[in-house]
């Protein structure tokens, strides 16, 4: 079962001056799940893009099933059996088409499909693919109406249904919570049992532990470690990828300061149970819960994007009711939104301009922006969050996914505020950077309240003093991050869940 399916020898790739892949060699055996680990900007996605026909390599050779493989376009790669789920979720779905078309788009693109659409057959096939993935979606619904998690699941479902020989998943779980991820893992196992080679990229140790049969560590465009065998050396892999040991995160809960946020009887949507919540200065609280449990709805209602049905919010003792982000920011409430590609990244701008966007007036006199001043801030933040780039005037699109995420966080950390809301701040961020950012968040938390909305429990444990669990758009449980019983939290997260997908369809 373990013959080599795909073999890379001395692959090189540069973007201008930046040498991203350096003489990289790697082989992917059939029937195994190779996890590729590497810090942000190590070159993982670049490797993926070469395999999937998006970029052409500068040098080296690749063979697929013994034959030379140099796909000139994604469609060539797909036809050769290399199917990819890309890191950027927006690259995976077509918003104006319905779910069924999205699930079948690669088949429509195949010459053998025939001229006319087979509507009924398509819907049936789409239902089948969706149910295999456990997707309880109306396949006639336009994807534009779905959230980021569903979009990710659609892209994954399509790839898995394609009968790939080599399946590449670039951070497929970045927007998924535990139960969806588990369904994904079961499917991956089934495919790999059928002899499919899987290349899996992730920063989540829990995923890696669960799924990996081999681990390849990558650092600065080179392979820095290969771990195989019955018992995998996870710690070794991490060290190989970082080039150093990583210390454990230790949370010491500081004394909370004065109360910042007071919430009473907040009802997020019609039919949800109202809840109370308080937050003090110097407190970092993680909000977790399943997909669609209302985390984002909670964050958005604090940022003026959604209007809660009823309830009272006070900030520093004063009534707080805002209708626009602008008004929220004016009251000292900042939010870093999830789904950075849609909600945060300004693709035409460089790093500096992206960072200073919300507080541009601070860098402007009489409306004239001081480039020097904003560059200084940008450079400070690049250093503080160790953003991998050539310089502060790099176009944001040339950064790796994780580094883009750091820029989006830097945007909001550059200024003092009363209440900081971070929705999925660690999406695509590598473990060390996550730790660094977590530390940074905690260090600067003294004069504000901080709410971090994460769907992964590890992330919550690493950053928070308190963890609250949401379910059905209400608070279901609360834990202090001291000697917590993981199982207890997990039960709280999953225990109150309605059957999979019910929450989603309820609001569709």
């Amino acid at each position, binding site marked *: 079962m373990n013959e080599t399916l795909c073999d890379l020898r001395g692959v090189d790739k540069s973007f201008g001056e930046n040498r991203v892949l350096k003489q990289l060699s790697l082989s992917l055996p059939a029937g195994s799940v190779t996890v590729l680990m590497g810090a942000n900007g190590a070159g993982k996605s670049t490797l993926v893009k070469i395999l999937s026909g998006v970029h052409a390599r500068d040098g080296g050779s690749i063979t697929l099933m013994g034959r030379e493989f140099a796909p000139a376009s994604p469609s060539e790669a*797909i036809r050769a059996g290399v199917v990819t789920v890309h890191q950027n979720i927006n*690259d995976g779905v077509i918003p*104006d088409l319905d779910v069924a078309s999205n699930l079948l*788009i690669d088949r429509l*693109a195949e010459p053998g499909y025939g001229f006319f659409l087979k509507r009924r057959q398509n819907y049936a096939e789409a239902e089948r693919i969706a149910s295999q993935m456990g997707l309880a979606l109306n396949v006639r619904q336009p994807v534009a109406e779905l959230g980021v998690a569903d979009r990710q699941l659609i892209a994954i479902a399509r790839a898995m249904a394609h009968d790939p020989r080599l399946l590449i998943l670039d951070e497929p779980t970045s927007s998924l919570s535990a139960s969806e991820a588990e369904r994904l893992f079961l499917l991956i196992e089934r495919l790999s049992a059928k002899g499919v080679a899987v290349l899996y990229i992730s920063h989540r140790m829990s995923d890696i532990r669960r799924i990996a049969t081999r681990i390849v560590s990558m650092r600065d465009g080179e392979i820095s470690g290969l771990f195989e065998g019955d018992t995998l050396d996870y710690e070794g892999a991490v060290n190989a990828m970082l080039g150093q040991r990583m210390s454990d995160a230790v949370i010491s809960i500081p004394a909370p300061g004065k109360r910042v946020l007071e919430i009473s009887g907040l009802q997020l949507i019609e039919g949800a149970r109202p809840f109370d919540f308080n937050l003090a200065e110097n407190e970092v609280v993680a909000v977790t819960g399943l997909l669609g449990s209302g985390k984002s709805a909670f964050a958005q209602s604090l940022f003026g994007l959604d209007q809660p049905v009823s309830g009272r919010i006070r900030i520093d003792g004063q009534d707080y009711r805002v209708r626009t982000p602008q008004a929220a920011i004016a009251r000292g409430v900042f939010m870093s939104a999830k789904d950075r590609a849609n909600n945060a990244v300004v693709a035409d701008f460089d790093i500096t301009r992206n960072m200073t966007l919300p507080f541009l007036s601070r860098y402007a006199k009489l409306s004239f922006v001081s480039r020097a001043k904003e560059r200084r801030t940008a450079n400070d933040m690049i250093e503080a969050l160790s953003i991998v780039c050539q310089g502060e005037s790099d176009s944001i699109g040339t950064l790796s996914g994780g580094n883009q995420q750091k820029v989006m966080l830097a945007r909001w950390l550059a200024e003092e505020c009363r209440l900081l809301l971070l929705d999925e701040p660690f999406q695509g961020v590598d473990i060390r950077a996550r730790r660094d950012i977590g530390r940074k968040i905690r260090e600067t938390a003294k004069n504000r309240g901080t709410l971090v909305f994460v769907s992964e429990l590890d992330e919550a444990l690493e950053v928070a003093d308190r963890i609250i669990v949401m379910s059905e758009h209400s608070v279901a449980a609360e834990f202090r991050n001291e000697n917590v019983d993981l199982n207890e939290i997990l039960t709280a997260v999953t225990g109150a869940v309605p059957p999979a997908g019910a929450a989603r369809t309820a609001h569709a």
Partner: protein
Amino acid sequence: MDLAIRYGFLALLVGLVVFFSVFANGFAGPRSAVFIFQSVAITGILALGVTCTLVVGGFDLSIGSVATSSMMLAAYMMVVLEQSAFVAIIACLAMGALIGLINGLLIVKTKVPDLLATLGMMFLLVGLQRIPTEGRSIATGMTLPDGSTAEGSFSPLFLQLGRHRFDFMLDNLLPAPVVFLVVIGLLVWVFLELTRHGRLMYAIGSNERAASLTGTNVNRYKIVAYMISGVLASIGGMLLAARLGRGDIASGTNLLLDAVAAALIGFAVLGAAKPNAFGTSMGALFVGILLQGLTMMNAPYYTQDFIKGLVLVIALVFTFSLSARKSGGH
């Protein structure tokens, strides 16, 4: 409210028809209906071409000039070069396809933004079509730049393309261009809605990168879209030539704007909020009905523009504000 979004525009259309039938003498009746169709046939065909480019997220500003070039070419082939109708038609279709191909290649290969590429093509064609005759219109007996006289003439067969009338309910009721419009409209509709190619073209228009990453040959479809647009525009130009019986340099100036208007109005039909063949046809019809009705009510030409604009704006506000309210939120 869903109903209002889906059928609001069509209701408006019906309302207009009823209004004019009551107040405009001679508006109701099959002849008048055919006349309206006839008056929008050429614009409608061009608008269907633009629709195809809009579907792949592009825009074709060159259609008006492709149509007039095709008109001039048809006339040149028959009147100056004394070729048959068949040769003239083939030449026009080939030219339309070629221009579409060039537009497509410019956009796809050299990455020139579509508005720019087709705008450049527009200027280029506007000049080019006048060079062979040094800016003169082409008609039998015209003097050529070299001093000789053009002896050829439009073949009767070719003229029938624009002038033949089929019997339909009444004798001699249905003009050939209307038949062309209906057939082309149906073909484009079927192509866009019912075939996999149409679906992939919509996919490209919605998210080009994702479509490409899932194996769609984005470049090829884009080029095809511009070629369809070019060919349809050249058909429109031939119909124009057949109706006029000459290559007239002054005709066809409004084709571009009217076709674009029809295609854009199509967004509002059935709440599609995207380019679609049915909507485009309705959009063309809408403008035709409005102008015909106003003419029958003896409104001066400048009030017609005003009312066209006003009704357009009101219809759009109505449709889009409703569908915006429906999709709700921010």
